[in-house]
C-alpha cells in the first residue's frame, strides 16, 4: 500500500476554499461546487448537466 511520506508533504497542506476550515472526524464532506464553466443550454440538456465540473460520463464496458 502506498502511504504518504511525511517528508515529501508540504508543511501546510493547501486547503481549497470549497472545503470547510475545520474538518471533523466521523463526518462525510462533499466539496462545495464552484460556479464556473457552464455548457451551452442545448449541450447541457444532452449531457444531463449544465456544469462542466460535474460532468462525469460513463465508459461503457462492452464497447
Amino acid at each position, binding site marked *: 500500500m502506498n502511504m504518504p511520506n511525511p517528508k515529501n508533504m508540504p508543511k501546510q497542506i493547501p486547503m481549497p476554499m470549497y472545503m470547510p476550515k475545520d474538518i471533523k472526524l466521523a463526518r462525510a*464532506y462533499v*466539496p462545495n461546487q464552484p460556479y464556473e464553466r457552464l455548457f451551452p443550454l442545448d449541450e447541457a440538456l444532452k449531457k444531463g448537466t449544465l456544469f462542466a465540473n460535474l460532468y462525469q460520463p460513463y465508459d*461503457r464496458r462492452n464497447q
Partner: protein
Amino acid sequence: MWIYEKKLEYPVKVSTCNPSLAAMIIEQFGGADGELAASLRYLTQRWAMPTNQAKAILTDIGTEELAHWEMIGTIVYQLTKDLPESKIVGTPFEAHYVNHGLDVYPHNAAGVPFTATYFNAKGDPIANLHENMAAEQKARATYEHLISISDDPGVIDALRFLRQREVVHFQRFGEALRIVQEYQDSKKFF
C-alpha cells in the same frame, strides 16, 4: 402543489422492440434503488429538514425523480408496446405479461412488487441525507449495469442522461449535508 408538464424531462426515442431489455429496465421503475423509491424517499423526508434550503433541495430532487420515473415507464412501454404475444413467450418479460399485460407496473427486474420498505425516514436529517447520497450512488451503479446490457441507441442515450442526473444529485445532497451540519453546529453556540 405540483404543476404537470405534458412532456418528458428528456426525450425518449426507442427504436426497437425488446421485451427482455424492458424486463431489466423495469428495475429502475419499481426496484429498491429505482426512481419511484428515490422520489418517495426525498418527498417523505423533506418536512422535518431543519433548514428551508435543505427542504427545497429534497422537494426539487424528489420532483425530478418523478420525472425520471415517467421516463423509465416510457422506455419500458415503448420497448414492448407493439409486441404480439408470440414475441413475448420465452422472454423474461413473459412473467410480467401474464399479470400486467402491457401495463407498466412497479416491480423490480425479479418481479418483486414495489414497497415502502425500500426507503426510510429516520427522524434524523444527517442519517436521512446519508441514505439519500447512498441511494444516488446505487442508482448510478444500476444505470451503469443497464447501459452495459443495452443495445438500443435511444435507450442508452436516455439511460446516460439519467445516470448523469444521479451524479448531480449526489453533489446536491452533499451540499445539503453541509448546510445541515453547519446549522446544527451553529445551534450549539447560540
